[in-house]
Each structure stands twice: as structure tokens, then as C-alpha cells.
């Protein structure tokens, strides 16, 4: 029997997103994911000084501004012909700044955005807003572990704050740091800052090792059916990131459903807009040629997100993509971390394509990044420069690809008469939460939700747990429609 449910907004994610789902006999048949906020950053950037993009694009997202600062700096380095001149110190410090925000974002995501779907905080702190109201029913962790997780929720508030304080040593301030610029970084490198950074980092590493990763295992043991829920499209994409003097921490690649890593070609990225509130003339273009012309009354559209595709295929981005790509390329540290977790929880690699697999990949990635940061600090050389001078060219094109906490991010620029002629950004959530494309193929999150069995229509835990495991960077609404009548809202739940 078909059922109709509606959830709007889904909270505890960054920004504004909507998802429309059709359910039949308790199983999701169709899901429509929709961004419900449009600001027009790409339009606002036109005609400005190219260097300003480095500051302005950070304001796309206050949770992961550093990833935009990095992508934008790489994009401008490229346009300004500086890519091969960036000093080693600048590469390392940019990576330390980005790494600090990865740790902040991953810890915030697990404890403060996702954990309340598994942990009943109100049973510990009392029926206080903002911990009530919440879904009822499926809280399975023992009272003792539940209390410990709530304690870590509070402790994690301090730790994520300290990640930002560590970032500010080289980044100036957070959110919206100022330290990363085309050509390098602005902060002066001194020995005292290295030591100061190291000991802040060590406190955060201690938390990752002794709270974050064990807590993921605790949740996994109580909810192990979530290794089978939210499988998704199984095609992963990583641009790679953390560009260091000796190579990248995250490798570049496409992972196919049979776990082969294929090489990545930037020109194969296109963006469809058939189901997006943009003029159809934009559809199917590579971001280097793309435009952004909003049309809020377009009939078949349901989202402000475009539909990025790679070689016309749907891809999932994020920690799962990065870690599995590194894993199949046999990166030793990644392999060791993943194999150790798989053995501890008693699952195979395939189980990583799931709600819990995404959380586990994120936690292990936090450890991989945090441990690597210790090495990067030791490679800094205080008697060498950390910046080269940047000059805005009259005409140029550039591209900057990197990794944000929630997945690969790309910036593309065209400069004419020393001003921005065109600027395009593709965020990881655009891939993950994309609407259907021109061939009506659902996006990655939509595919992960399709086929899901919803046990209790009054408390559809399954849906919100799948959505949050992707760490989407928007606020979200979920609509479940009747498969037969296709009408909204006959039955409405919480």
C-alpha cells in the first residue's frame, strides 16, 4: 500500500535542500533532491577583480570556506601562471589550513549534525530545546554508552572550536580565513607558530583516536543493519587534494562499481539543468563554458542545484570516494586504516557503500589527515619564502580542483581586461544531491534513498540517516509521494 510522508525542513545539515520521495508498500520508489536557496554567486562575481574571488567564494559556505579558498587560489594560480612557482612552504601551509578545517568539519558533522539520529541527548540533558522535539523509537545504544556519547558531543564542541583556533595560526581567522591567496600564504612562518600548531594538533589527534573512532565503532555495533542501507550509485569520484611538495595525500581517480580506479579527465565534467531552475540553453556544458541564468518558474524543474555528471555518469563524492580510491590504489596508510576497521567490525569492503560506511570513512579520513599534518609541519623551512607575487593578467583562463570535507570541489575562471568574465563553481553537494539529469537519471543521494524500506512512516529514521551520512551542505526537505496518485500530502508526518 502506498503511503505519503513529508519532511520539510530536514535540519542539521548546512544550507537549504529539499527532497521529494515516492513510496510504495513501504519502499521508496523515487526520490527528488532539491536545493531551495539561490544566491547567484557566479553572477555576482562577474566584472570583479579576479583576486576578490579568493575571498568572496569562501562565503559560499561557512562550514567549509577553506576548501573554496583553496580551490579558488589554485584556480587563480593557474590563471596567473604561478602553479609551478608556488613555494613548498606555501603548499604545506595551505594543506595545514585546509586540514585543520577538515578536522573541524568532520568532528562537527559526526557529533553535532549526525549523532542525534543515533544518540538520545534529551534522555541525558533533559527535555530542552534544541534537543527536543526529535524522532521517537529507534535509539538502540545502551544507557551507559549513550551517556558517554552525549559527553563526547559536548567535548567535541570544544575540540572543533580548537581546530579553528589552530587554523587561525596561519589562516588569520575562521570562518572565512584570509591567509590563503594566489601565490602562497600571507602569514609569516616562524618556529614558534610551528610548535604552537603541533601541540594544538596533538590534542585533536588524541580526541580522534580515543573518542571519534571508538564512537563510530560503538554506533556501528548497535546499528549494523546500516551497513546495508543507502548503497547509492557506487561510482566514486575524487579530484584528489592536499597538494604537497611530494605529491597529494588524496589521489585523483574514478572508482567504478567493480572497484577499479580509472583516470580522471577534467573535460569530461558536464552540468545538466533539465530539472533545475535555470534556462535550458545552459544544459550539458562543461563548467569552463557554463552559464548560470535562473528561471524560477520552469515547469519540470525542482531544484536550484544543477546536475554535474562525469562522462555522463552519476558519481558520489566525499570521504568514501577519497578513501576507497586511495584504497584501491593501495595507498599504504589508507589501506591499513580501512583494513583494520573492516576486521574490527567484521565486514567487507562492499559494506562501506552504506550509511555507516560513509561515517566510518569520514572518521578514518580524519585520522589520516591529522597524522599527516604532523609530517607536513616538520617539512616547513623557516628560512624559505611562503609566497610569490601575483599579477592579474589581461586575459587568461584557470581551473582549480581540490577536495572539501564533503567531497571534490572545482572552480573555473575566465579573465578578460583584468576582470572576471566568467566564474563557475561546482560544489560536492551539487554532485551528491543533484536532481535528475537530462536523461532522467537520479543523482547520488536520490539513488541511495531509492529502494530503502521505511519501517515507521511516523519516524522515518532511515531517510534522514541516509541524507545526513552524505554530509550535504544545504538544509533539506523530504517529501514522500503516493506512487499511484502522485499527489502531495494526504498523510503528513513529522
Amino acid at each position: 500500500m502506498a503511503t505519503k510522508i513529508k519532511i520539510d525542513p530536514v535540519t542539521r545539515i548546512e544550507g537549504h535542500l529539499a527532497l521529494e520521495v515516492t513510496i510504495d508498500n513501504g519502499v521508496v520508489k523515487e526520490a527528488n533532491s532539491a536545493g531551495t536557496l539561490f544566491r547567484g554567486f557566479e553572477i555576482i562575481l562577474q566584472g570583479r577583480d579576479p583576486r576578490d574571488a579568493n575571498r568572496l567564494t569562501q562565503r559560499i559556505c561557512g562550514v567549509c570556506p577553506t576548501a573554496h579558498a583553496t580551490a579558488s587560489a589554485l584556480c587563480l594560480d593557474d590563471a596567473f601562471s604561478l602553479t609551478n612557482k608556488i613555494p613548498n612552504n606555501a603548499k604545506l601551509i595551505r594543506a595545514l589550513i585546509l586540514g585543520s578545517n577538515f578536522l573541524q568539519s568532520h568532528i562537527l558533522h559526526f557529533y553535532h549534525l549526525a549523532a542525534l539520529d543515533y544518540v538520545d541527548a534529551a534522555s541525558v540533558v533533559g527535555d530542552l530545546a534544541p534537543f527536543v522535539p526529535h524522532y521517537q523509537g529507534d535509539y538502540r545504544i545502551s544507557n551507559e554508552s549513550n551517556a558517554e556519547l552525549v559527553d563526547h558531543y559536548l567535548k567535541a564542541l570544544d575540540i572543533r572550536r580548537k581546530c579553528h583556533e589552530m587554523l587561525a595560526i596561519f589562516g588569520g581567522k575562521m570562518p572565512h580565513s584570509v591567509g590563503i591567496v594566489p601565490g602562497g600564504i600571507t602569514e609569516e612562518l616562524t618556529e614558534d607558530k610551528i610548535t604552537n600548531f603541533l601541540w594544538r594538533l596533538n590534542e585533536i589527534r588524541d580526541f580522534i583516536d580515543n573518542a571519534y573512532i571508538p564512537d563510530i565503532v560503538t554506533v556501528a555495533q548497535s546499528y549494523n543493519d546500516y551497513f546495508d542501507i543507502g548503497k547509492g550509485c557506487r561510482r566514486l569520484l575524487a579530484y584528489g587534494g592536499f597538494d604537497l611538495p611530494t605529491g597529494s595525500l588524496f589521489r585523483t581517480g574514478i572508482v567504478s562499481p567493480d572497484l577499479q580506479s580509472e583516470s580522471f579527465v577534467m573535460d569530461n565534467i558536464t552540468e545538466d539543468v533539465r530539472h533545475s531552475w535555470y534556462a535550458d540553453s545552459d544544459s550539458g556544458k562543461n563548467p569552463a563554458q557554463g552559464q548560470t541564468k535562473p528561471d524560477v518558474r520552469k515547469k519540470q524543474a525542482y531544484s536550484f542545484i544543477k546536475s554535474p555528471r562525469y562522462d555522463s555518469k552519476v558519481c558520489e563524492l566525499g570521504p568514501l570516494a577519497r578513501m576507497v580510491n586511495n584504497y584501491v590504489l593501495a595507498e599504504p596508510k589508507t589501506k591499513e586504516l580501512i583494513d583494520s576497521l573492516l576486521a574490527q567490525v567484521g565486514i567487507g569492503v562492499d559494506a562501506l557503500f552504506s550509511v555507516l560506511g560513509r561515517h566510518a570513512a569520514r572518521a578514518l579520513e580524519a585520522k589520516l589527515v591529522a597524522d599527516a599534518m604532523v609530517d607536513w609541519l616538520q617539512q616547513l623551512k623557516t628560512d624559505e619564502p611562503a609566497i610569490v607575487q601575483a599579477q592579474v593578467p589581461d586575459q587568461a583562463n584557470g581551473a582549480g580542483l581540490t577536495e572539501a570535507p564533503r567531497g571534490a570541489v572545482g572552480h573555473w575562471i575566465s579573465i578578460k581586461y583584468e576582470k572576471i568574465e566568467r566564474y563557475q563553481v561546482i560544489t560536492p553537494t551539487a554532485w551528491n544531491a543533484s536532481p535528475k539529469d537530462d536523461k532522467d537519471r537520479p543523482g547520488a543521494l536520490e539513488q541511495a534513498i531509492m529502494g530503502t524500506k521505511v519501517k515507521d512512516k511516523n519516524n522515518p529514521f532511515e531517510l534522514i540517516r541516509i541524507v545526513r551520512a552524505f554530509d550535504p551542505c544545504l538544509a533539506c526537505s523530504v517529501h514522500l509521494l503516493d506512487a499511484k496518485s502522485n499527489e502531495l500530502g494526504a498523510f503528513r508526518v513529522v
Partner: protein
Amino acid sequence: MNKKMVSRKYPIVWLQGAGCTGCSISVLNSVSPRIQNLLLDELVPGQQLNLLFHATIMAGQGEPVIEILRDTEEKRKGGYILIVEGAIPTAQDGLYGSVGERNGKHLTIQQSVQELGRSAFLTIAIGTCATFGGIPAAKPNPTGCKGVTEVFTENGIGTPVVNLPGCPLHPEWFTGTISVILFSGPQALDLDDLARPKFFYGSLIHENCPRRADFDEGKFAEKLGDDGCLYKLGCKGHYTYADCPLRQWNNGVNWCIKAGSPCLGCVEPVFPDGTSPMYEKVTFEELVWPQK
């Protein structure tokens, strides 16, 4: 003190409009009080906040949280504080941004800010987007974004507004303002003509800048990474009113100019159009009359 004494609670609804969540994240960075204290404890003896609605951290979702908005507006008239983060899109009937769904329709940010604003006893606009429009309202302002005061004025909403600009705002500008309200009442806030507390926004960056001596001696940085005053690299500290040099950021670790970056003027009403290009020297006209 006796924990069982009933403390006075200040219900708060925190709406997010066209913004980036950066101001919420900045408030999470508050050191003393910590965010735990803001959420769970009596912030000052006998009084505490009661954060009824905040989309990024609240446990609930869907219709019950939309009902919280309706309940607050109807049952707590004149008894709650509305906090607005992000600008308010007004073009295309507000369809560029929605808070959630109500009665099968988008509840637009504009509609929500107007309804809740009308019945609040005080509205606090946090960040430059909510106060003055900020980046979403930058040219050509594709979504018709406006700040809270402008929307209230156009719609005859008389609820007092306190403006705490910044991109993002400093967490202490928020916690300090809340402290004045809890201890002495909102009438005790000493505001300037842009409704900013003078205590935080009363002095120029340039007055308190550690590189001021370099300026006075004519020692200027010629490129990023150099020592010296950042004036020639586009520093907007000469017309930007905020206490960043004294307070510093992220628990006093650093701030923009100390990190070798020119001040972007992110608290000013003209940000970002009037402060662009960010890395070009400010003109004489901007120094004389910076406010549009």
C-alpha cells in the same frame, strides 16, 4: 546558588536566510561563555536562553519544527527574540529562499522573517548579510536580497533591531550583546546610527592597529607578505569600525592584519561592493565618505 530555582528563560528563534551558516559557526567558536553554556546553562544568574529553533543544530525536523515557528509567533507574542542570519531574498515573491514547507507551500524566508519579526520583542540581525544585505545583495543583486531593517521598514514592522555586522561576526559581539540584554535590558544597549552597539563597533581598526606606527612613519608593504602598513595593498582599516585589533579572533590567536592580510571592511554597510577591489588602495573619496 540553588539550581532548582526557576530561571527566567529567553525564548530565541534563529532563522537562516541567504547566507553561508558562517555566523552560526562563528558563535560556536565562543570561548567564554562556551556554546555549551549558551545552550544549557544559566548564562547569568537566574537567566538563560532557550533556543527553540536553529536549523543547523536542532534535533527535530519537518512539520514539528515548522509548528515551533507558528507556536512561537502566536503564543509568545512580544516574548521572544528573533535572530536573523543571512540576507532576505525578496525578488520573485521570495521564491529564491525557503525555510521549509507549510500547508503544502514554500514558507519563504521573507514571509517567515516578517511574521516572526512582527511579534518579537527584539530582533538581532547577525552578520553583514542580515544587517545590510552583504554578499548576496552585491551587484547585480540577482535575488533582490535585503537586510532586516530594510525589510522591516518597507513592511511597517516596528520591532527594534540590533545590528551585529561582520563576515562573519565575532562571537563576542553576539555574547556581549546578549549579556547586556540579560543584565540590563535591551534599552541599555548603546547603539550608533546604524543600530550597532558602540562598545564593539565604536572605534576605527586604524586607531588601534598594531601596524599604525608603520603608517605614521610611511613604512608601507609593497606586496603581500611584506612587513609594514597594508594601506597600499587595499587595507580598509582606515574607514572600518570594529574592535578586531583589540579583541582578535579565535580565542585571541590571530586576526586579519596580524596575519598579513589587509582588512576587508567586512563589517561595513558598503561591503563588498564599496570595499572592492579588495587588494587595491582605497581612494581619497572612500576615506572621506565611505558610507554609500
